[in-house]
């Protein structure tokens, strides 16, 4: 429920405010129409070291490209261009 406008109390534990650069979809910036799974070097920046796909809220990719990205990464994994899991110990 939304409260009416009350004078807000200074909270005992105020939220920490973090400032960062505004994220943007790099695929939209470069005008990429569809993401090719063959270019594994481009996909590398959207994967964790362990091989996990990074979420869009971290990378800032738009929904359309994130959908394509996840698909492309999975296809690249299938074609042995990217590892499924990369053990941290190496």
């Amino acid at each position, binding site marked *: 429920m939304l409260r009416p406008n009350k004078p807000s109390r200074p909270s005992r534990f105020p939220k920490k405010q973090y400032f960062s650069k505004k994220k943007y979809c790099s695929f*939209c910036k470069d*005008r990429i*129409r*569809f993401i090719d*799974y*063959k270019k*594994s070097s481009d996909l590398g920046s959207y994967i964790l070291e362990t091989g996990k796909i990074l979420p869009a809220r971290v990378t800032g990719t*738009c929904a*359309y490209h994130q959908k*394509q990205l996840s698909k492309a990464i999975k*296809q690249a*994994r*299938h*074609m*042995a*261009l*990217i*590892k*499924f899991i990369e053990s941290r110990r190496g």
Partner: protein
Amino acid sequence: MKREYEIGFIINPETADEEAEKIKTSITDILTKGNGSIENVDDWGRKALAYPIEKHNEGIYVFIKTLSPGDVIAAVERRLKLNEKVMRFIVIRLDDKLKKTNKLEKKWKRIERFSRKPESDRERQSGRPAPVTPKPAETVKKEAVKEEKVETKVEKEVVVKEEKVETKVEKEAVVKEEKVETKVEKEAEVKEEKVETKVEKEVVVKEEKVETKVEKEAVVKEEKVETKVEKAEKPAEKKEAKTIAKKTVKKEKKVEEEKVKEEKTEEEKPQKPKKAPAKKTTTKKEEKTEEEVENAETK
């Protein structure tokens, strides 16, 4: 109905290159027979795999782009499945992705409309004032310095010019008159009256010297105007008075001029050295006249 597909497959590395080519040609034959057209064939050759497949760390990668009906693609998939030397295969439809790009372009246009203005604002905020602000500070300083310099220069120039003009006017007015008069008189009349003038000068000078100089200065100033007027009107008639007046006037003027010249030479030499020799000549002439007068006095 033809659609754009991309078929990719990895061949077992233990197979020979000829056999790998046979597999490739068999697939292309199926596509061409079924009314399909091959647009592009990518042969990556043997490439290291990201992870071992069937205990093999290498694989022969082949990618084929085709425009073909879906029935033929199904036949190709069947063939790839049955072939034991093909480790992995993938079939992707590129058609639907290209359709969606129309939506993307619309979105990008929308983004452009919103994104252009803030970018320009950012450039204005970040880019433009930064170069603008530092420049004027430097330029203003320079301008201020220049203005100061100019002011000082102007002041100096004005002062110097005023002095120059005054002195020049005095000099030119006096010296030229004197020179012209003296030269004309000397050249015209000295030849005939050398002896007389010398004698007269000597006599007059001695008489004046005996008299106090204070009287000279007091009297001469009054005489100047009179003598000048007389000179202008009747230069030839009153030689004695002129000679007296000239000498007295010259002495005073020389003293004054020398003082002024000393001041001038100090001020003007660095700025305008060209005028110095002209003055020197005048001074030399006057010095000569002084020497003559002294010689006359000694005699």
